[in-house]
């Protein structure tokens, strides 16, 4: 451990993108990073071994929630003050890391989310994706009284307090929106800052049409129940 900031990179079957993502991070000497290999069935584990990339390999697939939580538990055990989530598929731009960290420190919030829509950026998503994002924005305003323009963004940094929480309790699937609702309702501060996002380097989005309907219902239901009760 050379830093007090840990970058958590969950990876499931990311053999095409993982090297590129990690290489980009190598220029950020002052942050630690760890790849959580979520029981990948392709060459991801092999690549991580071969290139001596710091990683934790889950023996079976836990899904995004379980994988990310492994990272938070690792951060908690090793005494990190901040943890950043970064997607392995190259969508998140490492150039924004410094910006996220410095904003996090100066604003002194509990969670800072990298947003594609906070200011105008080059991001162009599909219509259905934009609709989903708008819907969750409205949902969060309604139940948690926060205005998050990009609630599904996985690019986020949290402080020690939230690391402790996530190490204990983190949703199994589609965790992004739900945790914002929970944190905000419990009085934690959640804010946003602008980031650029790239098109995917490889792999496929985990969200298909049918799944996105389940996603909206599931998140709405759980955000409501778990935030109020």
């Amino acid at each position, binding site marked *: 451990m050379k830093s007090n900031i840990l970058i958590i990179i969950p990876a499931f079957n990311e053999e095409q993108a993982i090297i590129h993502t990690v290489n980009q991070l190598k220029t950020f000497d002052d942050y630690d990073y760890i790849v959580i290999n979520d029981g990948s069935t392709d060459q991801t584990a092999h690549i991580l071994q071969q290139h001596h990339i710091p*990683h*934790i*390999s*889950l*023996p*079976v697939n*836990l899904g995004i929630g*379980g994988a990310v*939580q*492994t990272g938070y*538990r*690792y951060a908690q*055990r090793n005494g990190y003050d901040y943890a950043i989530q970064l997607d392995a598929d190259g969508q998140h731009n490492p150039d924004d890391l410094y910006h996220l960290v410095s904003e996090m420190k100066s604003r002194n919030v509990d969670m800072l989310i990298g947003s594609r829509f906070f200011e105008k950026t080059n991001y162009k998503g599909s219509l259905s994706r934009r609709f989903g994002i708008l819907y969750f924005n409205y949902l969060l305003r309604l139940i948690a009284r926060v205005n998050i323009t990009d609630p599904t963004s996985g690019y986020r940094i949290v402080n020690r307090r939230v690391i402790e929480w996530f190490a204990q309790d983190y949703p*199994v699937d589609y965790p992004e929106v739900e945790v914002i609702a929970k944190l905000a309702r419990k009085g934690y501060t959640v804010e946003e800052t602008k980031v650029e996002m790239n098109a995917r380097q490889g792999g496929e989005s985990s969200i298909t049409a049918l799944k996105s309907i389940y996603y909206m219902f599931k998140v709405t239901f759980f955000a409501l129940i778990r935030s109020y009760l």
Partner: protein
Amino acid sequence: MDHIQFIVIIAAFSFFIHVVFLTSKNKLTDKYAFMWLSFSTIGVLMAIALPFLNQFANWIGVAYLPSLIFLLAFLVVLTLLIYHTQLLSRQEQRIKTLIQEVAFLQKEVQEQRKEEDHS
């Protein structure tokens, strides 16, 4: 004793024997073995007491006994189901923690091996 009661008693008793058998072979852990033994005992007793159940149904104003039995059975099964789903969720949670712990240990072992190789 009419035919139907005889059949019901045989069925209830077979179920009871089945549960005893599973328990003796350690296929049910103590807690669940006890639960099912209780259920199957109640089943046998109810089969024996079938005529009295009819009277009881008349007495509380249920015109058709089977509907009362179905209602009760349905409620019992529903309660059991939610209880089992709850257990399943707890197991899932525990298994998740275990998997994470195994992964942490694996990492530590690998790092130690590397250090040993270097020294």
